[in-house]
């Protein structure tokens, strides 16, 4: 009797492991390729003053579960605000110390899911127009946002992401500088471009 139960338990365990491995073998993960061009721009257009904060310090991943593209997907991308550069050291320092308070909240992140995909062919490359929903976090405040963008398959295992959206600084408890000249718009446009490389199977 006892060997029979052990045999059945072993069989069950085998099925469980097989199911797990089979499903995992179909999982697809892409990570930001730190060797390829990447940029995040925070753009402010205010009267008399327009500037951009730029950084290439972007990292994160895109994951889905099987080869049905984007099934049960999730992503997380973050930007290092400590390296955000507006072109002037003082302004960088102001932005970090006074407004973004990067000693407390060093990154801005966007975590969410792709909720809609439209595929099109662009000059022989497959391009996916995607709609995403997720949580954007900066300055210690999280807000639900929807962002649209494109995923462009450049070659096997390499894709490029472009996306743009905007936030309002008061929504994130970020002060708007009011010194001498009004130089920062409360609406900040954010544009990102980076490459992902497929890492599953490595």
């Amino acid at each position, binding site marked *: 009797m006892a060997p029979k139960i052990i045999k059945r338990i072993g069989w*069950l365990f085998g*099925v*469980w492991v097989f199911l797990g*491995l089979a499903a995992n073998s179909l999982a697809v993960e892409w990570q930001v390729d730190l060797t390829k061009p990447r940029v995040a721009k925070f753009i402010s257009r205010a009267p008399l*003053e327009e500037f951009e904060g730029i950084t290439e310090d972007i990292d994160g991943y895109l994951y889905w579960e099987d080869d049905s593209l984007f099934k049960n997907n999730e992503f997380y991308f973050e930007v290092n605000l400590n390296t955000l550069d507006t072109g002037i*050291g003082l302004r960088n*320092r102001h932005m*970090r110390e006074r407004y973004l308070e990067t000693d407390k909240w060093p990154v801005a992140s966007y975590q969410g899911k792709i909720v809609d995909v439209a595929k099109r062919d662009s000059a022989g490359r497959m391009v996916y127009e995607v709609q995403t929903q997720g949580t954007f976090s900066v300055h210690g405040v999280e807000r639900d946002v929807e962002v649209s963008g494109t995923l462009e398959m450049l070659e096997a295992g390499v894709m490029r992401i472009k996306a743009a959206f905007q936030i309002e600084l008061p929504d994130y408890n970020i002060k708007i500088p009011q010194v001498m000249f009004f130089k920062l718009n409360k609406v900040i446009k954010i544009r990102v471009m980076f490459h992902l490389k497929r*890492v599953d199977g490595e």
Partner: protein
Amino acid sequence: MKIWQLAVICIISVLVVLSPAQERKIRWKKKIFKGPQAVEIFHSTILVNLPTTEVLQKKNLEFIVAHRFIPSLGEGIDALFGADGPAYMQLSLSYAPVTNLMVALERSNRENHYQLWVKYKFWEKGSGEIPMAAALKAGAGVAAEDPALSGRSRFQARNWQYFAIVPVNLKLMPNLMAGVVPGFLYNSYIYSASPQTSITLGATVEYFVTSSMGIYAEVNSVVRGYRSDGATAFAVGFETETGGHFFKIFLTNSTRINSAQYLAGVDRRIEAFSDLHLGFTITRLLRFGEKW
């Protein structure tokens, strides 16, 4: 169906739900981002006449307008303490083609002087108690005066001056910056019988009252070689920064406005506070980035 077979089917169903596949094994690991890479000490690329170790961001363009009023403070309120002019002025356009390097073209109405220079920040140390950096500014200038006035052609060899300056800047405290600025000038006085050289030593200091306003002082002295007068050049002033602008206003005993002129010394000794001159510098930074 036997009971144990039914149990197996139920258990498998539960296990499928709980199988390892449902625990997402994301390999991406959060990295510890480092802090700012660049060492920022003085906020602008020049203090008054002496350079700092700051360089423009890559692909940035900086436009500078500088004035040194020729009448001194002693002219009084009727001449707005010299600000009614006339003035020596300089226009400067600089650009950073690559990281840590900038080039500039300047023109001063003093001797119709054109100057081209490069500045390269070759060393910085951000860690430790005292962040510090060093740069090399080197260039050439030509006093292209009207031949009818100077009696010689605009671009003859003796009109050319060459200089090299090595600012070393330190962040002594969060709000207190200091610098040592040795320099070298060739052909210090273009009308001398033979080319002269000058070796100089300058110092800069700035205290930031707030993160956007500072008070500063600089001195520069010829320690060896030709100098136009025995006095040491100095300036004290105030600066404020808004967005892409710097505005500096200062008092100085020198009306010389670019490196080749300034390193050779000052025009005359001052005897009293009223002999000082007003000056100002306004900078505007423009950015040209890649489109994508």
